[in-house]
């Protein structure tokens, strides 16, 4: 008998709670029970893309170095009562090198009949590209803030830059640039083409 009474009390309590909850949910002060447990697809608001600046550039890309790197932050210790953090992600991207032709001036090109001499500035890294789609989080422990994550992503870009230099991107870039321009000038009818690339 006692057990039946206890069950009835619980049922009554739930019924009262439901009666109180429903009107509040209807006027929007509380969520409907369904919406609490339902997962919704993320909705992305349409925002405008604004052109901030348009610049004329004169760059010649001569080498692209593709890289992939597993970045491990290691265990980041946090103050007492906070969970330690760790982030492991895979970064995929490319390093582009070449020449900035805007550095050329009147003295950089010397023509004598069918001969031409072109003096180029040294090859340099023009861009390191790892777009958001190039980052893939593998392990995430603790709460990594956006600023912290940005710092790690920037560090990954520095690693890409360093790797590309170590693999000789600038030397290859110079050679490729020399060949490209030589071909171009020969197509223009020059018989002797001399490409001089300044040393860094």
């Amino acid at each position, binding site marked *: 008998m006692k057990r039946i009474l206890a069950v009835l009390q619980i049922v009554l309590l739930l019924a009262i709670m439901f009666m109180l909850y429903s009107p509040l949910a209807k006027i929007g002060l*509380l*969520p409907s029970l369904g*919406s*609490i447990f339902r997962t919704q697809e*993320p909705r*992305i608001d349409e925002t405008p*893309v604004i*052109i*901030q600046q*348009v610049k*004329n*550039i*004169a*760059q*010649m*890309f001569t080498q692209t170095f593709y890289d992939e790197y597993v970045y491990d932050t290691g265990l980041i210790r946090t103050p007492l009562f906070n969970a330690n953090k760790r*982030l492991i*992600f895979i970064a995929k991207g490319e390093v*582009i090198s070449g020449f900035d*032709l805007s550095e*050329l001036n*009147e003295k950089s*090109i010397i*023509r004598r009949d069918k001969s*031409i001499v072109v003096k180029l500035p040294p090859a340099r890294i023009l*861009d390191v*590209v790892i*777009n*958001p*789609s190039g*980052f*893939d*989080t593998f392990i*995430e422990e603790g*709460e*990594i803030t*956006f*600023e912290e*994550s*940005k710092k790690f*992503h*920037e560090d990954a*870009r520095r690693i890409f830059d360093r790797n590309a230099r170590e693999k000789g991107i600038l030397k290859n870039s110079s050679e490729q640039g020399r060949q*490209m321009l030589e071909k*171009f000038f020969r*197509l*223009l*009818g020059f018989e002797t083409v001399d490409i001089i690339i300044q040393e860094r």
Partner: protein
Amino acid sequence: VAWYGDRKILFEASATVKAGIDLNELTDQDIKQENDSTVTIYLPPPKILLFNMKPENMREIFNESGILRSNFSNQEKDGLLSQGEKDIRAKVGQMDILQRAARNARILLESWLKKMGFSMVHVIFKGKGVRP
């Protein structure tokens, strides 16, 4: 944002887009020299050569989660930024960046070739839709 169960995040991101000409597509037939001072160059149409969204140019402006929801994880943020990247890439195609690239390539090439002693330089873009 409903205090009990919504999550909302707002990012500001900027991207650098470089458009230009792929000179590897240039063939022997694309350069026609009529005499020592006149040259005609047929260039391939310009295209987007680089799209770069640098982390230092991204900002999290707003991030709020209801009490019944977990915060946005790093993986989720990366996923959302990837969607933003896709969105910007799609919109770049609708801008006049390729026309600008064609115009700039023509100016650059003409000035280069004139420095080399060609007094008459004709730059013509192959393909449709490019009228710089």
